[in-house]
């Protein structure tokens, strides 16, 4: 597995020449890193590289979208109630594995969904049955259905006990009604059973019996079925598709090159591309765009049409960056090539630039003035989400950069004593002057010196992301923690460039996507895998797509630590 990634990486680099360019670009800060890494990669036999610790063997409840997608992949298009795991908000980027459990509220929702899905499926049973009950008899046909449906729902083979229980359910349902009622009850039971609801990362059951002999290091390897599910939930946000299922069934998925080929195949699927685009939008928080609220009296121009135009721009842009421009963070943060419609063109004040745009209700590709629009930070959608309901906020904008690109926790707001003490000095200051005060005053600077300079870089944009020039000073001095170097910048175009070049930012971005892939905070569990993904990320023009491509190749993907069973 370890060799696979390097073969593929170097093959890609030489074809594109991109690896070369990048290595030259990153000579300064990265060269030593690369050298150490190259030694590590070349000299150490990859199979001997072990993590200090792996993620514990675990179960992981399906997310709400996975739950709905899985039901539809099993049964075809069905209407489903909007299942919402308590504690989860719709726009969350990371579905935490350790957190969610099936309490009373969720079990009730699963029941409603299963019942609704089963009822609809039974109404058009010919589409889900592999047989005709009239032709081969109801018992035989029910058994054939169970043998096909249950393993796919459980993402693993079912054993005899399970089949017998499901047959008993079929007979109970049939007794109260007819053949379809029996099938309906089977589907209803499967869709609210743990086999369907939990992803397992436990290895083969047979390994439980003799763990020490087989796994002296206390680690276990995921089964091919578990690997298929890992891949499918990561890329499809659903159960394994046909090719993955076939590769799990014949166990070939445990071979690194087969797994790698599936990753490449998945990354080319439109459905996967759309899903990963959504993942990036959730990461950016632009998903919250549709709920953003503005003061209607002060900002009457912010109507649903403008909201949709803003959302469409970012969605198309992200998709284009991911799938037509190599997924590069550089493109994401600095590119002026975007997609706007007439409404947004007017909003950006560029409706005279392009005659096609000025009349188009659909977003069309344009190249905007990079002095004003460069990268996703300059998108009206993001800027709108980051504002309050009527004003732009240096602090909110700065905190966003802290959180998303520097991985810094949000500090507590100031104490009452501090605010009271500074009230006299801050009265009457403009919001830019306030920021300078916070940066320059010892009592505030502890936090604000890492928040406000980043927020100041956004100053050219108003609360709805419009460019403004009067009395604006977006010059500021920033330090990216970890890199140490001080940068004088003016505006978001500069900020984007600094962020893109920073190794700390790269590490932070990789960490967040890995946390998403594994649904947890990663401490010492994946240090080696993380380093390798970071390396690959840096070497591929910081490609977000390559993070996803690389994750399944890492030791932590298929390996779990045996867990304590006290």
């Amino acid at each position: 597995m370890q060799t696979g990634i390097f073969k593929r990486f170097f093959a890609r680099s030489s074809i594109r020449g991109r690896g070369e360019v990048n290595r030259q670009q990153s000579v300064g800060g990265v060269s030593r890193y690369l050298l150490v890494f190259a030694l590590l990669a070349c000299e150490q036999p990859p199979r001997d590289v072990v993590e200090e610790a792996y993620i514990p063997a675990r179960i992981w409840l399906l997310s709400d979208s996975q739950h709905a997608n899985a039901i539809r992949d099993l049964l075809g298009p069905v209407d489903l109630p909007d299942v919402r795991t308590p504690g989860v908000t719709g726009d969350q980027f990371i579905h935490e594995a350790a957190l969610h459990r099936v309490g009373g509220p969720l079990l009730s929702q699963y029941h409603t969904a299963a019942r609704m899905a089963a009822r609809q499926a039974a109404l058009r049973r010919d589409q889900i049955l592999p047989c005709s009950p009239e032709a081969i008899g109801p018992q035989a046909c029910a058994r054939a259905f169970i043998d096909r449906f249950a393993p796919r729902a459980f993402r693993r083979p079912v054993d005899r006990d399970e089949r017998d229980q499901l047959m008993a359910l079929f007979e109970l349902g049939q007794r109260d009604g007819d053949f379809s009622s029996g099938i309906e009850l089977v589907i209803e039971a499967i869709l609210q059973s743990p086999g369907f609801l939990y992803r397992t990362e436990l290895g083969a059951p047979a390994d439980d019996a003799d763990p020490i002999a087989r796994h002296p290091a206390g680690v276990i390897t995921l089964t091919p079925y578990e690997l298929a599910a890992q891949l499918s939930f990561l890329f499809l946000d659903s159960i394994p598709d046909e090719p993955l299922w076939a590769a799990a069934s014949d166990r070939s998925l445990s071979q690194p090159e087969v797994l790698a080929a599936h990753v490449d195949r998945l990354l080319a699927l439109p459905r996967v591309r759309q899903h990963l685009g959504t993942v990036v939008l959730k990461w950016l928080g632009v998903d919250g765009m549709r709920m953003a609220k503005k003061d209607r009296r002060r900002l009457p121009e912010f109507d649903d049409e403008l909201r949709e135009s803003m959302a469409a721009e970012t969605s198309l842009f992200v998709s284009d960056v991911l799938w037509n421009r190599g997924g590069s963070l550089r493109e994401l943060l600095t590119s002026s090539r975007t997609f706007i419609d007439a409404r947004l063109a007017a909003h950006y004040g560029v409706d005279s630039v392009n005659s096609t745009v000025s009349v188009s209700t659909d977003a069309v590709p344009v190249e905007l003035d990079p002095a004003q629009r460069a990268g996703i930070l300059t998108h009206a959608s993001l800027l709108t989400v980051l504002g309050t309901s009527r004003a732009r906020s240096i602090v909110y904008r700065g905190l966003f950069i802290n959180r998303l690109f520097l991985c810094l926790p949000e500090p507590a707001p100031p104490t009452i004593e501090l605010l009271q003490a500074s009230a006299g000095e801050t009265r009457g200051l403009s919001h830019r002057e306030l920021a300078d005060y916070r940066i320059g005053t010892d009592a505030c600077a502890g936090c604000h010196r890492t928040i406000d300079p980043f927020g100041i870089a956004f100053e050219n944009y108003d609360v709805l992301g419009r460019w403004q020039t009067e009395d604006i000073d977006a010059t500021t001095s920033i330090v990216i923690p970890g890199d140490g170097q001080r940068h004088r910048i003016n505006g978001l175009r500069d900020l984007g460039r600094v962020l893109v070049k920073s190794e700390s930012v790269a590490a932070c971005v990789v960490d967040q996507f890995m946390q998403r892939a594994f649904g947890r905070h990663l401490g010492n569990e994946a240090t080696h895998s993380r380093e390798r993904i970071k390396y690959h990320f840096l070497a591929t023009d910081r490609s977000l797509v390559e993070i996803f491509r690389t994750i399944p190749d890492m030791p932590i993907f298929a390996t779990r630590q045996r867990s304590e069973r006290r």
Partner: protein
Amino acid sequence: MTQTTNRLNRRAFLAGMGGLALGSAALGSKYLIRPAGAETDRPPTRLLIIHKPCGTVPENYHCTGGERDFTLSPILEPFAPLRPHMVVVEGLRIAKRERTPGQDHGNGMVTFMTGGVTIKARGFRTVTADRESIDHILATDRGVGGNTPIRSLHLAADVRSDRDELFTRVLSYSGRASPVPPETRPVAAYTRVFGGLFSDGVDRATLEHVERARSRRKSILDFSRTGVERLYNRVGAAERIRLDAHVDAIRETERLIDNSLSCAGAADLTQLRREVDVEQIDDLHGEFGLAHLNIIRTAFQCDLTRIATFAWGPGNSPINFSRLIPGVENMGYHTITHSGSNRAHDETAIHRWYNERMAEFLITLRDTPDFDGSSLLDNTLVVVWSEVRLGSPHTFDNIPIQLFGHAGLQLGGGRLLRFAGRSTNDLWLTIANALGHPMECFGDAQRCKGPLAGLFD
């Protein structure tokens, strides 16, 4: 305290087998059905914990005057009709410790509810609590929580937050790093509590249909239970805690199935079963809250649960009140508390608005008969609180707290009590003891000063 008799009676509760029989023994009034889990002689005491976000406005909150002759402040004025049932508690501090993980609103919630601190548990991204919360302690004490179908019920009108942090949306913890988030949608809450077998209502079901549906549902639950057992044998301790919760939920469903005909009051709530457009969540904030509170009221009345929490929203609430309350600035509630241009006015209006809704609910609770004909409010202790004193800057001293309901607990109403230098942990200690749960201290034992004298008679 004086709860010995009650506790003996609680131990003698009737087994919940008689859902159908009880349902048919309706004695002419739908309210006079003795619930399946209740004692023979008198109704049990229930506990409802209501969280209202973002503190208060001190100059418009604090009442002037003495213990019994105080003048209601503008913010508390909506509770005037409930004054005989209300105790205003002043001076208590949330014993939040220095430099704990996570932001203040969530910290206030965790420390108030658990007496403990926030933690970053291994493998977690989210901040959680280091121990179980008071509602869970009481719900798992059979002497307090009883053997009701639902051990405790957790609902919230809104959990949206302008921070992506779970612990600002959670009141209940079943243990270390084990948050129990609330259900937010009335339709889902209704279906869980009262739906039982009947997704289309309890009244239309015939006995035969009920029995068949019940048997099918139980077979499905049996299949789920063996599925959980299969996993249970293969996972570690942390996963087993979560699977235990799954088994609890299966048991809860089974108990609800057995009781589903005994709650006639649920029929009054059938209007809750419509889905509401999420876009309307701000405009329907009051309706959402009252819907949840009425689900809790009916669940209490039918003894489906005795412990409930309800949250109006997180401290980081984005609810925009400008269309609900004319004159309030057009921005999210949390934003108002930090950067509103007319903070005192707007926050006062919002607190009054919340209190008007709660007063409406408490009056309904007062007028709802318990199964022995007494007032449901008499047999319920309602604790209304906030996770901070001020929306900005966040402070944890002198938290605004009101208690409602009295006879069952000898909580003498119509009083204003000031406890300087004491913490909310001691309030829970006092309440736990009054409910019959033995407890020496709640929270940090070294700072515990014992029960609050004079709260209960």
